[in-house]
């Protein structure tokens, strides 16, 4: 079994239900996120469009975070999930530096690395990840990539010409796919990120782990 995610960006409406569900389910502290939805505006008024991209750990088959972790705190589960043992983590932040997707953070409460685990604790109890349950439009599709009859496998098969991963050039083989995504949605350098220009506040960066 190799678990994976697929997000249909055509369906996602940016409600952030998944983001909140993840926060609640995993008690993710303030100022940190395992899953977030990024808005990118494209075009010039009045010809504008807003894209929504949920971003989480890609659970790479060839995970740089697992490779760099000096104490195996980051490790693979048999089902392909890249999990983290917070008791073992020494907080070197090597994984934060190694992740090409910016998906790992230092938990300000435990001072250890943390990230999306595809809700491994729920999966172990045969439940879907919290974000999948919360999505009102079923944009999050989760399942076994090794099973050709699973929803995710069928979705990938049906949308073959339209399935993408983030930064394929990194050779990480993500187990996280997107359909209907474009360069702007998936490539951080394709959009401009202006300091102090987010919709609700001017905070664009936060200290790592809150102690530096």
């Amino acid at each position: 079994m190799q678990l994976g995610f697929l997000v249909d960006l055509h369906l996602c409406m940016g409600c952030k239900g998944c983001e909140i569900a993840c926060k609640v389910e995993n008690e993710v502290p303030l100022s940190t996120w395992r899953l977030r939805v990024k808005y990118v505006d494209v075009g010039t008024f009045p010809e504008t469009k807003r894209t929504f991209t949920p971003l989480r750990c890609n659970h790479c088959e060839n995970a740089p975070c697992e490779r760099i972790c000096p104490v195996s705190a980051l490790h693979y589960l048999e089902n392909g999930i890249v999990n983290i043992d917070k008791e073992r983590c020494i907080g070197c932040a090597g994984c934060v530096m190694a992740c090409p997707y910016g998906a790992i953070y230092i938990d300000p409460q435990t001072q250890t690395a943390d990230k999306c685990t595809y809700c491994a604790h729920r999966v172990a109890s045969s439940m879907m990840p919290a974000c999948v349950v919360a999505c009102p439009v079923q944009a999050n599709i989760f399942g076994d990539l090794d099973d050709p009859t699973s929803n995710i496998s069928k979705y990938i098969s049906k949308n073959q010409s339209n399935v993408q991963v983030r930064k394929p050039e990194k050779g990480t083989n993500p187990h996280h796919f997107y359909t209907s995504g474009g360069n702007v949605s998936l490539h951080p350098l394709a959009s401009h990120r202006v300091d102090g220009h987010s919709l609700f506040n001017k905070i664009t960066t936060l200290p790592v782990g809150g102690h530096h």
Partner: protein
Amino acid sequence: MAAHEILAATNAVVTLDVAIPGTVWPWLVTVNMWAKSIGTGVIFMLFLLLRKHPDSAKDLRFSTTLVSIIFIHIFLLFTLADLHQPFRMWHIFFYPHVTSAITIGAWMATIFVGLLFLLAYFSFIKKDNAKFDKWLTPVVILAIPVTMYTAALMSQCTARELWQMPTETAQMILAALLAGSATMILLGGSKLDVKAQRTMGAVLGLSAFMSFTMYMAEYIFGPMKAEEVAAVLEYIKGDGPYTVMFWLGQWIAYLIPMGLILLARTNNSASILKLAAILALAGLWVVKHVWLMIPQLLPMS
């Protein structure tokens, strides 16, 4: 709220996102690299001096070992200080993960420290120069990977295209040669005869020249190899946030010392050579810091 600037090419602007992490590896890691360059560099230089100028170096065995021990401990202390869970450092030895350059580096550095204390024992307590010189060779051999492992660690940060193993390995070795020769010029003082001073000056000048050349090559040709490198180097170009610091480092660490070394050779001036050494050591910290910081400014998602 000010109007968004919109890129002409994509017309795309991030309008809502969470705050992304700031600097992950801060100045503590710069001190780590800087101190390690001195700690291993002086061992390289002692080895060189004992072979090329044994009379000048004969009284430098213990003092050099002591300086190496001090700076390797500064390196270790700042490594520890940078951990968010420093009291779990022992996990590296009890739950090791051998694919990590951090693990391999920690082991090698630990053995290196042990061997340094052995050298100190031979030079200070036993006063046995023959045994010291015999053990110095394996210490020098170990000092090479201890110097280089940070390059492996940086290259494992796969998102940071700027830090490639081949160039960073060369830069780490050059930094050790530069820092080692500069420290030996200051440490040796009048104990170094003119020929030994010239040798140290040559090592300092040549390593500064090579390092500067590599940085300039990256500065000019880096943007051609990867989009991420191009974006990162923008932080040290034009009115980028690290432009001033980058050029300050290049001048203080490399260009001015190179000029001063030429001046010292023509004037036979030990004072000018010492000034070059001080500037090189100070500038090296600045150069390392800029190179550590700029890739971390790039949004990864």
